[in-house]
């Protein structure tokens, strides 16, 4: 059972968190074309290896934060608040 470091609450068990998508995704303006909007909505990096992800400490402080982890080895590099 993984353990993630919430930037505010410290290391907590993975069941306290919810995955919220790739980090760094910018929401396009309404003028975006169908392709750009589809990429925002649906397309993913889905990295095998180091990844930067958004997670929510949903059963704790409820804050969103960035988690750097490896999707293959499950090593956790660190976490930080959203920019």
């Amino acid at each position: 059972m993984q353990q993630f470091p919430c930037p505010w609450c410290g290391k907590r068990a993975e069941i306290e968190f919810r995955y919220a998508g790739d980090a760094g995704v910018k929401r396009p303006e309404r003028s975006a074309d169908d392709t750009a909007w589809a990429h925002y909505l649906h397309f993913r990096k889905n990295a095998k290896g180091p990844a930067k992800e958004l997670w929510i400490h949903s059963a704790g402080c409820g804050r969103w934060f960035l988690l750097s982890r490896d999707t293959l080895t499950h090593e956790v590099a660190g976490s930080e608040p959203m920019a």
Partner: protein
Amino acid sequence: MSSVKKHYSAWSLLREGIGAQTGWSKAWQDRDPAGRYDVVIIGGGGHGLATAYYLARTHGIRRVAVIEKGWIGGGNTGRNTTIIRSNYFYPESAALYDMSVGLYEGLSRELNYNIMFSQRGMIELAHSEAELEMMYRGVNAMRVNGIDIDIIDRAEIFRLAPLLNADLNIRWPVIGGLIQHRAGVARHDAVAWGYARSADSLGVHIIQNCEVTGFDVKAGRLIAIETSRGRIAADRFGMAVAGHSSVLAGMAGFALPLQSYTLQAMVSEPVKPCLDIVVSSSTNGAYVSQSDKGELVMGGGLDRCPSYAQRGSFPVTQSVVAPLVEMFPSFATLKLMRQWGGIVDTSPDNSPIISPSPVEGLYLNCGWGTGGFKAIPAGGTVFAHMLATGRHHPISAPFDLSRFETGALIDEAHAGVAH
């Protein structure tokens, strides 16, 4: 050069039994990659092998290679819970999955390989009146789509699955349910091996331990792949690598609307036959069947953490076992024997992606998520059509990658159909 396929039969077992088993031949040959093929399929799982088979058998295209980075059937095909069904909501899905069930029905004889397809039926339970009412919507949709599906009442459910808890005061009371009669289970490895043997006998090259290391794209067209066993060129390339689709797509320079998660499966110790039908609950997500060897084969929801580790966490294992024990109280006396995971590539609408890719000459068969095994024959059929003609089979057209831009999602997730 194709190998002569030795015919399997009770007679062959008798003959070889007397002759100390020396007359059996290889189920498939190990080939060295040639420099060029008409079609190269990346991914030696059920879908990839089936595609190669149908290319050779239906379309007469035999200069085909299946490239597999490990051992064939070693991905999700060898890890799933072996359920075959076609109870999907939308007509596009029904056409695809029901074609698959139909193909599975004749597959053992067609491949001369017993895939042990047991059409024992599948029940999905409703645990409240509200759920049962929602189930009517789905059942009617499926009936219009020609799926053999019925609503069944408590009495019939307990007749078919006597071990279910009949108490109405439990957390998951059985209020009613639906049944698909032609649904069931099959031996997953046998599907891969059966297709491999037949494809091989038709001249397809099956190349194991061969990993793609790069894509040679020139002017927007894929002309060759680099692999750990050399460079391979082809007119068309098909990718059927499930959970690794985004990795390979990334190598080829484009992104996909997929997220790879671990899906766990687990088996109990084997016991004498006690469950003769597949039972599932879309509310708590757990489902169970009994293998021919006697193990209860169980599964449930995803580990909702992006992962390629194929392991899964203990809390999710618990979340599969706990509802099953509640629904089948005598299961609590059994022991969990083994637990494992696969990498499932889930799409935003829980429907597959069968499509040309943004790179010319490279075609995609992915996004099956937790439901790829049941679709192997159909996936192979429509993907072979696409690789043979460069165009969609009518049944695969709705699953084109472009649907995410037009908004024409086939949202089986929200149609309430469990995976």
